[in-house]
């Protein structure tokens, strides 16, 4: 078995598209994909059709700072790679097709520009990335390993490079790199075959260095049409140079105090130049700049300032640009293959892409008045979200729509309590909702009877904050030293509230900060006993407080920081609280006395922060409070959450279970609900939360088997059923570990019962007190594991591939059909993640429609299941594996059906609001005998097994064709090492196989 486990993310985006303030832009060579990077570090992949319809497909997570530049990183069109760099020096290599992160690295300095360059050494081709940025060199980086190979440096006045262009010459074998430094000196390096072969770090010196007196150079570009001229755009003027000897051909100043930020040749005689605020102009170059003309170089050496060449087109910005919060990014691209579009693309701070298709011909009007070019297409992320029907689901949307309003109340903070399977959501209006995570996800994702019910699933609302809840913390989850009843929340109303989640009671309100609470942190284990019962709160007035949950008072308030607090670290042995501020200063506070020990900057500050890391194991700060922003969420995912939850602990758990009696049983309940982790994320602090459900397939299987082994009537589990499926990886253990499982389950059950009773009593008390709050929170009256499995299988099942099978799944297995194709994700190395946007199905529809011979329109429901089998191959592989292993497990179980939950049996509630009656206590009791009876029906079980078996077989055959080429070769589970993907023909073949198998299965039934 592979060391990596299979974790599948499913995203609930909610109606608000993530903030996507575009900072960089790229169109892939085939003009079918647009890539945008944003200020918060995400990268969005947009699909574009030849008819210029644009649709966002996926969002890539991984950078922790603003994306500064994007570049293609492969030459071929079969494998499209993309490289991105961020403000903090990170570089990532992504697969454009499925959003996998293939390689990543971090340098000390930030790149501001990257260009792909392919060396041809004989027949061998090697990809290189030429990078420049906040350093006085051009770094040459290998395009597959991202290693720095060598650098191009300058002897004469070395300085930062502000822009660079590669001139390819077909005449000679030499290629030239031309760059302009920030001080306006043009530098030329020649790359020959010897240079490209060089592997050591010897620098390459420049061939030529010439001051061209271009202050504030913004961009340089080489004319690919004539290969004889060079366009240099500076903020106050643009100039054309002869590419041979770099003599000035013409210079055009800017008008009306506009500042130019870039330009490009669009034809041999035309250039397009754009300004900072997003307007573009197309100029016809004077004859002196045209190599084809007899007047070429006619005025070299003469003063050329002042004459403005004729304007062909002007492209104004959109009317609603006042909504923008920073200058847009404009780029020009032209397709070298069909359909030969020349596109001017602009991305702005509202996450909007605007595309102008530039015509080949000039307008027929007199050139004195420049024609205005119309926008070809314009779309923003939010618009794409708004267009969706039904709107993209948020995790608790059904509970958040206020009467008289369409928009659900936004979730602004959330925390998931895995031990109880509950999700706690703080909302915009100050209320906090506790809801069973699986059930609410089922409501949002799947169709079923629950759609008719109001106020389903059962939830509890805590009211206390005046306005938006900004952060939530469940301290018991971090350390068992805290009371498992207490939940801590911070709000925009400056207050921190302690709640009892079992009674819903507000225990205490702290009002000590002078700004909204931004973070709640749990101190590490080895602090003094007093501090151990505190939580640490950080507020936007740059203050830090230690709030004792036990004493119900603030024991320390550190509030002299001038800059926002970036990091909190601890030195428990010295009783120090170390506060790192955004300006790089570090404050050291004594926790006991509250005295400021010292305040330092510079090297000492860095050293103090590093010293804290050595003492305390990593990720001590901000480990467990919900996503304050994505940076932290990502770090947590990669460092703590993913590792702990998925790989390490469960592996140990599995081995422990198999090993035998000496396993530490005390630890087991802790992992019992780790099959599902709900992680709230936001890309920008101002965004509402979106939620990602991480399903750990191994954990689901372990839990299912655990429960199965513990089942009271073991006669039903015949050894045959278990032996029938030797393919299931985790199956062997179930027999061996039966004893342990039983013991474990007994203890779990007892715990569960205790909780359940607790809660019901509390509930009743409360109901007496407050009538309107009486909704039951009977969390564990249903089977959490089965529900998780149901949700998971329903999302993964390939709906629509086989109608009969779908019917069986719906009626017999109790699976539910998703409302719309589910947005899955893909976790690749280092915690990098690609999440499908809810709009991905539009691209899919188009794709499938093209595939259809009749060209008929497919409806959304038809592609519900096909969705996951068409979009991304790496995702498909993961899904197949999950389906196979899970189906295998379910087959061996006695009542392998999701039907029979109390949901079905419960008396349908009248859909009237404001009726608080709930026959809660009777519901589960009524359902259970019925449930038992149904399961014991023999024939039903038989068909169920058969069906599942067939399903499994088909799944296996589907995977066979895939796995022979794919999975076995690459080790499926290691999502990172999937470097190759199979052709689409394999998928088609397996679809046929699936159908054949299903036919067989149905006949048997």
């Amino acid at each position, binding site marked *: 078995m592979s060391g990596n486990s299979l974790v599948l993310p499913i995203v609930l985006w909610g109606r608000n598209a993530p903030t996507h*303030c575009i900072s960089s832009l790229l169109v892939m060579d085939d003009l079918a994909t647009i890539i945008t990077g944003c*200020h918060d570090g995400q990268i969005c992949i947009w699909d574009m059709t030849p008819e210029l319809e644009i649709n966002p497909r996926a969002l890539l997570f991984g950078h922790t700072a603003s994306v500064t530049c994007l570049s293609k990183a492969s030459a071929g069109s079969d494998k499209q790679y993309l490289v991105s760099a961020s*403000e903090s020096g990170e570089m990532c290599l992504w697969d454009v097709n499925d959003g996998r992160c293939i390689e990543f690295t971090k340098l000390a300095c930030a790149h501001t520009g990257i260009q792909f360059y392919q060396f041809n050494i004989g027949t061998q081709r090697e990809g290189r990335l030429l990078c420049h940025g*906040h*350093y*006085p060199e051009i770094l040459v980086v290998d395009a597959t390993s991202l290693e720095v190979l060598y650098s191009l440096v300058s002897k004469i*006045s*070395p*300085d*930062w490079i502000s822009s660079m262009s590669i001139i390819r010459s077909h005449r000679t074998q030499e290629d030239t790199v031309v760059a302009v430094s*920030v*001080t*306006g000196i043009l530098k030329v390096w020649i790359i020959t075959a010897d240079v490209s072969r060089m592997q050591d770090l010897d620098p390459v010196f420049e061939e030529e260095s010439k*001051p061209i*007196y271009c*202050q*504030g150079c913004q961009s340089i570009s080489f004319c690919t049409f004539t290969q004889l001229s060079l366009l240099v755009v500076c*903020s106050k003027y643009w100039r054309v140079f002869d590419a041979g000897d770099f003599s000035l051909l013409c210079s055009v100043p800017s008008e009306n*105090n506009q*500042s130019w930020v870039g330009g490009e040749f669009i034809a041999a005689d035309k250039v397009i130049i754009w300004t*900072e605020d997003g307007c573009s102009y197309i100029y016809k170059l004077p004859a002196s700049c045209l190599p084809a003309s007899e007047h070429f170089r006619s005025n070299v050496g003469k003063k050329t300032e002042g004459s403005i060449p004729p304007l062909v087109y002007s492209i104004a910005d959109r009317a609603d640009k*006042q*909504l*923008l*919060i*920073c*200058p847009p990014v404009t780029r020009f691209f032209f397709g070298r293959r069909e359909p030969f579009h020349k596109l001017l693309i602009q991305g702005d*701070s509202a996450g909007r892409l605007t595309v102008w298709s530039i015509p080949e011909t000039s307008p027929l009007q007199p050139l004195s008045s420049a024609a205005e070019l119309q926008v070809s297409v314009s779309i923003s992320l939010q618009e794409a979200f708004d267009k969706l029907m039904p709107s993209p689901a948020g995790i608790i949307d059904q509970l958040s729509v206020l009467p008289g309003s369409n928009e659900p*109340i936004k979730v602004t903070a959330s925390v998931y309590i895995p031990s109880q399977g509950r999700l706690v959501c703080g909302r*915009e*209006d*100050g209320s906090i909702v506790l809801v069973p995570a699986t059930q609410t996800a089922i409501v949002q994702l799947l169709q079923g009877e629950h759609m008719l019910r109001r106020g389903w699933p059962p939830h509890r609302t805590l009211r206390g904050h005046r*306005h938006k809840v900004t952060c939530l913390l469940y301290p018991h989850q971090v350390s068992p030293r805290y009371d498992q009843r207490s939940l801590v929340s911070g709000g*925009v109303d400056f207050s921190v509230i302690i709640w009892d989640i079992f009674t819903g009671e507000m225990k205490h309100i702290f009002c000590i900060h002078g700004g*909204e609470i931004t973070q709640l942190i749990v101190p590490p284990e080895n602090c003094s006993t007093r501090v151990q019962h505190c939580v640490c709160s950080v507020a*936007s007035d740059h203050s830090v407080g230690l709030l004792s949950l036990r004493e119900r008072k603030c024991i320390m308030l550190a509030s002299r920081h*001038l*800059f*926002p607090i970036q990091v909190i670290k601890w030195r428990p042995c010295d009783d120090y609280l170390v506060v790192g501020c*955004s*300006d*790089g200063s570090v404050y050291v506070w004594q926790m006991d006395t509250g005295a400021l020990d010292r305040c330092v*900057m*510079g*090297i000492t500050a*860095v050293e103090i922060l590093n010293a804290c890391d050595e003492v305390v194991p990593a990720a001590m700060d901000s480990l467990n409070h919900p996503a304050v922003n994505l940076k932290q969420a990502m770090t947590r995912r990669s460092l703590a959450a993913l590792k702990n939850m998925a790989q390490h602990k469960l592996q140990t758990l599995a081995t422990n279970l198999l090993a035998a009696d000496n396993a530490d049983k005390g630890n087991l309940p802790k992992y019992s609900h780790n099959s599902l982790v709900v992680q709230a994320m936001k890309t920008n602090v101002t965004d509402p939360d979106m939620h990602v459900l991480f399903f750990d397939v191994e954990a689901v299987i372990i839990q299912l088997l655990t429960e199965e082994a513990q089942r009271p009537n073991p006669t039903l589990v015949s050894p045959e059923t278990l032996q029938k499926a030797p393919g299931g990886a985790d199956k062997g253990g179930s027999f061996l570990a039966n004893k342990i499982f039983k013991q474990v389950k007994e203890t779990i059950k007892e715990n569960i019962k205790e909780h359940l009773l607790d809660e019901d009593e509390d509930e009743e008390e409360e109901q007496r007190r407050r009538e309107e709050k009486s909704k039951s929170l009977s969390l564990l009256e249903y089977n959490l594991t089965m529900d998780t499995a149901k949700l998971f299988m329903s999302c993964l099942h390939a709906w629509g591939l086989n109608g009969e099978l779908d019917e069986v799944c719906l009626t017999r297995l109790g699976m539910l059909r998703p409302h719309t194709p589910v947005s899955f994700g893909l976790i690749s190395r280092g915690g990098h993640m690609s999440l499908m946007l809810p709009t991905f199905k539009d691209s899919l529809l188009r794709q499938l429609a093209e595939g259809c011979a009749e060209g008929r329109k497919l409806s959304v429901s038809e592609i519900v299941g096909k969705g996951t089998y068409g979009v991304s191959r790496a995702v498909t592989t993961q899904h197949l594996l999950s389906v196979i292993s899970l189906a295998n497990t379910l087959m061996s179980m006695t009542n392998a059906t999701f039907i029979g939950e109390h949901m079905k049996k419960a008396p349908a509630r009248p859909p009237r609001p404001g009726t608080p009656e709930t026959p809660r206590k009777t519901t589960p009791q009524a359902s259970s005998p019925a449930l038992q009876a149904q399961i014991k029906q023999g024939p039903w079980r038989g068909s169920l097994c058969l069906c599942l078996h067939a399903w499994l077989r088909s799944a296996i055959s589907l995977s066979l064709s895939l796995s022979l080429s794919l999975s076995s070769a690459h080790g499926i589970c290691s999502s990172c090492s999937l470097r190759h993907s199979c052709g689409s023909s394999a998928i088609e073949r397996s679809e046929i196989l699936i159908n054949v198998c299903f036919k067989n299965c149905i006949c048997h039934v």
Partner: protein
Amino acid sequence: MRVHTFLTECLFLAKCVHAVLKQLQDILKEASRRFSMPSPGLCEGQLKQENFILGSSTMDQVKGVLTLQGEALTQADINIKVAKSSQVMHFAFRDDKQWKLQQIQDARNHVNQALQLLSSRDESYTFKTGAEVNKLMDAVMLQLSRARNRLTTPASMTLPELAASGLVKMFTPPMPGDVMVNFYINLSKLCLTVYQLHVLQPNTTKNFKSAGSSVLHNPGAMFEYNNTKFEVSHVHKVECVVPWLNDTLVFFTISLQLCQQLKDKISVFSSFWNYRPF
């Protein structure tokens, strides 16, 4: 309600923000001037040369006179008194060489980028939202804090990196193999470190442990370079305050604080503006 808050926001943005931006721009211009950017029209010779005498109050083994012209050290005279022989070694830069202090260049470029950001938003520009100002402030602060960090945190290097840096090859007479020097800026001080090395015998009983990267290595640090193992026997550090660097640091700190104050104001206002009763 909406109209009212919109008006207050506009009023604030119009009145307050530009005042702060103007002030900020003045300060940064002053800071940028200190870096005495070589303007392209003038030849290099017109940059002011400054001499700094580097010394330390506690020891006199090393003395240095450095000439700083803009971002480059154009001349250097270093006297090292070797402890054993009380013999004084004298080194100077070769005439054709000068050493660029990358820290100063980076700081200068960052501050110029900050200025460029501000200059595009002068009085003629009207800010429409607080978020817009915040975004601008974020960008400016990023450049300013980078500029400051470049001066306050010198690059930490490993000893082999230092040996390979080419700095030792700058001197006449050539430096012996057992002496290494390093120049850097720490806060407002121009620092010179001289490492005296001795070669570790290959059969030495001492545990060889290669030292990591650091700004200032301590005696006893070991490293391997060109297949020879060395140990640092003496470290001498001398420094001298560069007054204009001190000024720029003060300017950076003030302007960062101005930016932050403006951001704080906007965040207070915007939480009020965004207030929506439920």
